[in-house]
């Protein structure tokens, strides 16, 4: 890993204003920060603070009102639907709170889906999907439909689907919101491990303070604004110290 950490997402003065009749809601209000390659970044805030909106803006799912979002050097906010779709195929993965698996498809087919859209040849994508499902511990559930699996298992399928195409960035909005504490821990560890193995960037949204400890960096959001950015220090080993350097640079971005 280089000394200078590489910016993978740049959020610059981003605003999202919803109009409800005459009222304006500043869901995201002039937010700027950077996310670095390979880090696990957590957007933490209470309900209604604007974290989901921010994540959707970063992923190009929603159009911003003003500002810029640069991902892998490309202005996401300027892309049309087709370019965005191709960008997602290549670089992005998603984990959802309610899993969002397709009910009529088996676990294997669900995991294959991003590769189907990407036109990956049949044989290759089957192998990739299987490998991924094995990695999340579901090698005995390949042919199961979502309904036949527990919440934790479904979210594992969701994680396999998010990572199967080897994306550079995986977005996760409350990925454990529907899970109990024990399953939450398993799922969080899984996400972190897979991401770390492949040096993938994670952007996770949560309202749960306790999940912040899985992250390398926590960005606190309050009323559509960045409240603070802090780097989590873990038990020291060589790699963590390197991350510390990243944290220091990030700290200088701190608003408060």
């Amino acid at each position, binding site marked *: 890993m280089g000394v200078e950490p590489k910016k993978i997402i740049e959020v610059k003065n981003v605003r999202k204003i919803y109009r409800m009749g005459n009222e304006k809601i500043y869901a995201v209000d002039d937010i700027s920060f950077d996310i670095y390659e390979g880090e696990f970044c957590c957007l933490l805030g209470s309900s209604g603070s604007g974290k*989901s909106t921010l994540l*959707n803006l970063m*992923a190009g*799912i*929603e159009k911003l009102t003003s500002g810029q979002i640069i991902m892998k050097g490309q202005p996401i906010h300027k892309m049309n*639907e*087709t370019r965005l*779709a*191709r960008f*997602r*195929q290549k670089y*992005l993965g*998603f984990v*959802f*709170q*309610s899993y*969002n698996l*397709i009910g*009529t*498809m088996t676990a294997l087919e669900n995991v294959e*889906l*991003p590769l*189907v*859209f*990407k*036109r990956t040849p*049949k044989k290759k994508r089957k192998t990739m999907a299987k490998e991924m499902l094995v990695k999340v511990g579901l090698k005995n559930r390949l042919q199961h439909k979502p309904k036949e699996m527990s919440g934790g298992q479904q979210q594992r399928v969701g994680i396999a*689907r998010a990572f199967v*195409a080897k994306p550079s960035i995986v977005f996760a*909005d*409350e990925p454990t*919101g529907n899970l109990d504490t024990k399953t939450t821990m398993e799922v969080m560890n899984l996400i972190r491990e897979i991401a770390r193995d492949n040096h993938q960037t994670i952007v996770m949204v949560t309202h749960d303070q306790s999940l912040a400890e899985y992250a390398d960096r926590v960005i606190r959001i309050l009323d559509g604004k960045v409240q603070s950015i802090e780097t989590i220090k873990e038990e020291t080993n060589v790699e963590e110290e390197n991350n510390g350097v990243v944290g220091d640079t990030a700290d200088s971005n701190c608003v408060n």
Partner: protein
Amino acid sequence: MRISDLIKMGLRNLSRRKARTGLTVLGVIIGTISIVIMVSIGIGMNNSFDKQFMENGAMTVIRIEQYGSIIDDEGNWLGSKEQVLDDNLVDMVRQVDHVKAVAPVLDTSAMLYSGKYETYISLRAIGHEAFAEFGYPELISGAYPTAENNRSVVIPSYVLENYFYNPNSRNYETVAIDPKEDELIFKFNEWRYVRNERKKEFKLDLTNVAIMEESDNWEHNSYVYFDMDYYKEIYTQYANTLKLEDRKKAMAELDTYSYIMINVDNIKNVTQVQEDIEALGYVTYSEMQYLEPLKQTSDMLQMVLGAIGALAMMVSAINIANTMVMSIYERTKEIGIMKVLGCLVKDVKKLFLFEAAMIGLLGGIVGIALSYLASFAINKYGGPLFQTLMQSSGVYDVGDAKFSVIPFWLPFLASGFAMLIGVLAGYFPARRATKISAIEAMKTDS
């Protein structure tokens, strides 16, 4: 997405709501059957029509008659007009575009004698070329007159078998005459002109007789045919036996014809040629002109039938559109998820179009299969109903006709059409599906 994946996904979506898909397909099936059956009945009607009118009537023949009938557009007789038909007119008619052959015709009456038997006959003189040009029936024996041998006299077998009788017998029973064995004497009618007492009566011993087989056309069965030149020759001989003043009158008959037959190169041009000749100031007659109004009625009936089919198809198109819209409502979230996972807009569109087209195609194929059954049933059991239907459009001779005919191209056309209907009906719903935002995937409330 790859085509194979698109197909697989589309079929999966269709099969997950089997009842709804089935009902929509049923709509298309009904629409397809209506269209195929209606078109097939139209074709069946046309076929019977053609059979009746094209085969026995010489549909390309126009006549200019000495006493031309004046007919209105509906085919009603309004009166007649006497017109002079001479060689001058024959030459003029030959100049008209699309005229293939022209034959002036002289009709008169005469007598045939065979021993104690005799009969009155209608005599028709035409140029020997006309026998080939206007399609006369086959001969049982002998040959039609030719340039080399124009002395052949053609007598229908019907005349030989049914006309001759003994005028001195009590019941006038007819006998059959065989020209090979019995003598045949030809004379012109005595009552028309007065003979010069000093001259011998004109008689012609017919030795060169050709026998025409019996035909469906009454005209061919009742005339004795002479070549025009030969006729003029014997007529002149006959006229020479008449008193001086009658001789002149009789010879004048050769100058004007009874009617002129015209053969047109193509059935499509008959009306045009008729108009051109009428422009010269002559009234014409053709089978076509009677056929035209009947044809129009038949065409209209077919159009009505077609419209019924089209209506049924339109209902099924609305049905497909409705199904697709419902399906999109149901799958809003799913489409959002697909988009977030990188599905291209055009693939979403293709997916929905494919599903709609499949409903159309499936309905089309099943509909065609059932149409063959329905067509079979109509031909077998639909007789009484369709007989009346066809008679109302001028086809009387239904006999062994088929009421419903499915030509080889109809199934392809119909299934293609059904698929097209599906695609068209699915187009706007599909476009709507592409407008669904990826944000739908992020909503947690459902």
